[in-house]
């Protein structure tokens, strides 16, 4: 690889038969381009998803969204994930996330913000970190649209266990500290069953959140000290898979239907304006994709 660009954002997209991650990645990249300062972007995908992209995404629009495309084939590992689309509909789809730890090698940037393809950045919050010497950062806490905390197994890996960190957004540079962080992530991935016993979490679904939680725990002195930067303690905002996207008021102005996790028929409208939101209900993004892209045209953004 040639000398790396200074700063940028990477997004993984590996399609499966149910979910068009390529489409989600383009929407996420469009938001990066509009709202952030360090907005060079890189799509990381495989050949088959890229073929689909060439067929389904207008090339001009693609160029508006991405500066780089890196292909990296992932060896298929059976990792089915049950998804919700509102509380009333579920489906199962393959989840390919086994090369996320290789991002430190795949990125074309010296300083990289890696975001999930369903993470919508509607403000410039993350700009600050590119202007620091912080080697890497991840969100330590999360909250739902109604400001409630995640369920307990997403606060700690087990009742007496370590803190649960989030891999939805990962910032890193090319320092030794960052390399160590990703080395630990890789080590946990390669020894998944062992770590599932040691840290007492369910092994059935491979979750990168658990990998980064263990890496953060180890790098924080095998405890909860503060070596690992947590994006100024700002929580990740999760629109749960059971939440729905109901209206696009504008590019940076979305309205959700937030489902109560205790009583599913109880819902609440939540408006998120100029906010960063992890929209975990991917079918909802899919349903509103045209509307979202139209909002950019309307605002000439």
């Amino acid at each position, binding site marked *: 690889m040639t000398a790396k660009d200074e700063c940028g954002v990477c997004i993984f997209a590996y399609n499966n038969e149910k979910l068009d991650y390529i489409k989600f990645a383009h929407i996420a990249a469009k938001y990066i381009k509009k709202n952030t300062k360090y907005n060079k972007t890189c799509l990381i995908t495989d050949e088959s998803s890229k073929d689909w992209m060439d067929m389904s995404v207008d090339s001009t629009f693609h160029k508006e969204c991405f500066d780089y495309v890196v292909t990296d084939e992932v060896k298929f590992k059976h990792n089915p994930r049950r998804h919700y689309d509102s509380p009333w509909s579920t489906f199962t789809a393959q989840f390919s996330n086994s090369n996320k730890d290789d991002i430190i090698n795949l990125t074309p940037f010296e300083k990289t913000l890696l975001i999930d393809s369903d993470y919508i950045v509607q403000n410039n919050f993350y700009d600050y970190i590119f202007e620091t010497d912080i080697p890497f950062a991840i969100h330590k806490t999360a909250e739902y649209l109604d400001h409630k905390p995640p369920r307990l197994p997403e606060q700690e890996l087990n009742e007496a266990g370590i803190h649960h960190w989030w891999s939805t957004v990962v910032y890193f540079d090319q320092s030794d500290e960052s390399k160590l962080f990703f080395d630990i992530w890789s080590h946990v991935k390669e020894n998944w069953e062992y770590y599932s016993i040691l840290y007492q979490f369910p092994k059935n679904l491979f979750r990168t959140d658990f990998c980064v939680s263990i890496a953060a725990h180890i790098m924080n002195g*095998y405890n909860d000290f503060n070596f690992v930067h947590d994006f100024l303690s700002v929580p990740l905002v999760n629109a749960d898979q059971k939440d729905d996207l109901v209206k696009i008021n504008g590019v940076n102005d979305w309205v959700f239907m937030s489902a109560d996790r205790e009583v599913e028929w109880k819902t609440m409208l939540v408006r998120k304006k100029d906010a960063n939101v992890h929209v975990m209900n991917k079918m909802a993004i899919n349903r509103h994709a045209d509307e979202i892209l139209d909002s950019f045209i309307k605002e000439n953004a």
Partner: protein
Amino acid sequence: MSSRGFITLGIDSEVDQIKYSYALALSIKQCDPSAEVCLVIDEGKTDELKQEYKDTFDYVVELPYGNTGSIDGIHASNFWQMIHCTPFDETIYVDSDVLFNHVDIDLLWDTFADRDIAMPSTALTYRTTPLGKDHKFYLETHFGLPTNFGNMIYFKRKSKVALSWFKMADAVFQNWEELYAAKFSERSPEFFEKNFLINVITSMMDMNNDVQIDIPYYYDMYSKGQGFWDNSESIDWVNELNHWYTSDGTLIIENSSISKGIIHYRNRAFITEGIIDVIKSTTNS
């Protein structure tokens, strides 16, 4: 320079209770071999003290006013006598169910330097998160009392402020049942509760702002403050959580490591001969 050292109370019942004070003293000396530790014992018991205990403590003193808890067996009620028997100008009283672990003792003294009397107002869980105070201090909160941890108290022997605090402790600790009946009849601890009484004293003296101090490496294994998912049940951490005391003196509980800290472990079953041997070996090395 004024003398300074640690003091702890060790009164045997039918079983050897002094071994906990012994483990504490060894752990302090593991941190700083020059640190001095005084053991306070029941009157007339000096001759009965094991030689290895005598060899470890720098001072052994007897309760100057006798064991005021001898009848009801509540030996902790002798706490009020500590200022009257300490051999040091500056003293840190420590409960016997506490261990020191790679603590910078000079830094600890510096932390207290400008205080007459002080005690931690915060504590950490073994996962280094803030200890939840709701359950532990529910009575204090109900009555609007301070919520400090009275398991480690610094005081200056010649300070009038500290003396006045201990003067009140004298009255409170020797009359705790009457105090419960007179002041807390609506709701009071079921039994003698040293920490509650210490917070009552601080309240009576209107000294909360003066005494509270943050020791950012003070840990407390109080079960219902550890942030377990079901806080309705106490967890016997020694039996229910995996734990190791490593050869370099680090306490590991489940996946979390306490490599430096003052640890109020509470459950005496934690102190085994094996742990004492480890502390001894690291103290001597």
